[in-house]
């Protein structure tokens, strides 16, 4: 699916690892729609940013946060004004055990030992989890019982393998499985988990790169996003600056 259709141009896209599944579908749809190809490279947002800084041949950057794309713009690595939020993540409190999570009270269960979350310093989902705990007044419980994954997919693995009974995960990770138990965290309990994209300098001359960025805001792409557990914002570019 990452192959290049003959005739069309190819765009190299750096994709935050947590967006892997959705990105693949979008790339396929993009190829069908435009005849261009998209070559996806996955990695952590921080790692991808460091690579871009060191001249990696990426043309579009789909980050898991809004900080790194903002930084890229400010550092002159990205085409000014190209930055936009392509997806908004939803946080979910999840357990692999059926019935364990029915609502926020699951966090207060005295028998609960481990709560998995992504590193709040690095990952937007982690930061959001912290905000939720604060809002619910269970900060202390979280501090005592937390196990931190480097990113949200590690937190997911902690929960899936049963090593942590519950965890704050991305809806995207569990949206397609029916097992376990979950509580979809209301968005009002935390700041928005905006995932931003940006056109990189390397892609300035590649019309396919702009087309890919545009395609992210298309109806087809937004449908895929929703199916994967993201909320799509209108395709209007955000103002400069970030968090």
């Amino acid at each position, binding site marked *: 699916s990452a192959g290049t259709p003959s005739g069309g141009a190819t765009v190299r896209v750096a994709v935050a690892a947590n967006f892997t599944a959705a990105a693949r579908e979008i790339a396929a749809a993009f190829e069908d729609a435009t005849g261009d190809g998209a070559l996806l490279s996955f990695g*952590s947002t*921080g*790692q991808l*940013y*460091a690579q871009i800084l060191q001249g990696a041949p990426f043309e579009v950057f789909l980050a898991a946060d809004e900080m790194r794309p903002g*930084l890229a713009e400010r550092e002159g690595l990205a085409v000014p004004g190209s930055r936009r939020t392509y997806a908004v993540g939803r946080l979910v409190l999840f357990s692999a055990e059926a019935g364990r999570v029915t609502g926020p009270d699951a966090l207060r269960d005295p028998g609960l*030992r*481990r709560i*998995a979350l992504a*590193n709040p*310093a*690095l990952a937007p989902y982690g930061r959001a989890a912290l905000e939720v705990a604060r809002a619910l007044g269970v900060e202390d419980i979280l501090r005592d019982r*937390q*196990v*931190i*994954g*480097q990113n949200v997919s*590690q937190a997911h*693995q*902690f929960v899936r*393998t*049963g*090593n*942590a*009974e519950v965890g704050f995960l991305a809806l995207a990770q569990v949206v397609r499985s029916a097992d376990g138990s979950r509580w979809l965290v209301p968005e009002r309990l935390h700041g928005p988990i905006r995932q931003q994209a940006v056109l990189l300098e390397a892609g300035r001359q590649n019309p396919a790169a702009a087309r890919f960025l545009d395609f992210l805001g298309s109806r087809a792409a937004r449908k895929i996003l929703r199916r994967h557990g993201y909320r799509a914002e209108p395709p209007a570019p955000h103002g400069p600056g970030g968090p």
Partner: protein
Amino acid sequence: MNAETIWPPIRLTLELAGVTTVFLLLLGTPIAWWLARTRFRFKEAVAALVALPLVLPPTVLGFYLLIALGPDGPGGFVARLFGERSLAFSFPGLVIGSILYSLPFTVQPIRGAFEAVGDRPLEAAATLRASPWDAFWTVAVPLARPGLIAGGVLGFAHTVGEFGVILMIGGNIPGATRVLSIAIYDHVELMEWGTAHLLSGSLLVFSFVVVAVTLSLQKKMGGRDR
């Protein structure tokens, strides 16, 4: 960056590397000895088995370890004896993961050294009524000392720098499983370059000293140039 956040990972890293190295030597030495001396036909298959964890990406290995250490694996069974759910996110869990991942680097040099000792000194020991156990400790181990030191050093260094496996099974719990390598990585991810450089630099210097000093203990035996 302050002392409070810097020292716990360093202490933990040294503890982990130290304990792991001890276990690596305790476990690796008999394995190496067996590999060096057995005439078992398929011993190279066993040797390959020891080296095998290497070929898996650490994060993947870590994932499988997570399953093994978890509530449904043998690790969970052991953990329940101590009233825990899982061996993951605990110091013993880290030690187990580190041992598995660094074992081949310890076994290999020790095996080589045992093989280089040859039959002769052991035969001589046997004729002096040293039991195999006695001869192992009083002849084979001292003669293979350079290999044991090299194995320990490589195991130590590899554990200090280990990352993927620990990341996977550690849970980055400050004071419990947040080792130096993860701390440095966090700083890199946060683009706190200064702190990252400083920690990396100190780690390099410290390790250099440890490794260089240990390796120097390999000093040759007596010896004339003949």
